[in-house]
């Protein structure tokens, strides 16, 4: 039984590197530098956006170029890319049981993801809610990767 949309096992180490690397760089910048001191200001193409968090002001632009800080953007892109590579690369021996574990983990992660969102809506309000939401976006990916590797490990013994 073959699961569709899976990459070669070779991508897995690359996934780990990007996933953990970007998380560590982000954690380091948040913990050891005051807010907004780490900046990578660059001109980027935007479909819709402004530089309200920087000095560019809150005037929004459509389909044009904008100078803004892309440090969080880079971290998020690398983290998502790493997570996807991890979640969608084959195991060394990708067989029917591994495929079953994979699908079960997806189901579990999907459910937990929405339980977490439900609780966030219930218990968090205002800007704190928005602050937590930006991290919440990555919860499903993280839950899936943890659950899948936990099940692989558990079924070895």
């Amino acid at each position, binding site marked *: *039984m073959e699961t569709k949309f899976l990459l070669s096992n070779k991508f897995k180490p690359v996934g780990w590197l990007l996933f953990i690397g970007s998380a560590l760089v982000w954690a380091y910048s948040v913990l050891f530098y005051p807010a907004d001191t780490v900046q990578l200001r660059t001109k980027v193409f935007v479909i819709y956006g402004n530089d309200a968090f920087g000095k560019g002001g809150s005037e929004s632009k459509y389909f044009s170029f904008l100078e803004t800080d892309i440090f969080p953007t880079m971290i998020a892109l690398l983290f998502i890319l790493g997570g996807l590579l991890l979640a969608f690369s084959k*195991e*060394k*021996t*990708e*067989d*029917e*049981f*591994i495929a*079953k*574990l994979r699908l079960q983990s997806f189901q579990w992660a999907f459910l937990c993801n929405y339980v977490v969102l439900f609780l966030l809506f219930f218990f968090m309000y205002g800007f704190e809610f928005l602050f937590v939401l930006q991290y919440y976006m990555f919860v499903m990916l993280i839950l899936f990767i943890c659950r899948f590797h936990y099940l*692989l490990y558990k*079924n*070895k*013994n």
Partner: protein
Amino acid sequence: MKNTIKIERAVKDITQEDLANIISVSRQTINAMEKNKYVPSTVLALKIARYFGKPVEEIFILEETD
């Protein structure tokens, strides 16, 4: 469904790892089947039976609850 993979494996004196390599599945799969946590596909059941040189029914046995 029960199975006698563990017994057959002991008779042949091979490890889970060996059997996994022979029928090209992961060791997790062999382990899960031996612990009755996983019911293999027909293809895998036939492969296992062929390797042990026995009919499928001798290795995989239905239970009351099935």
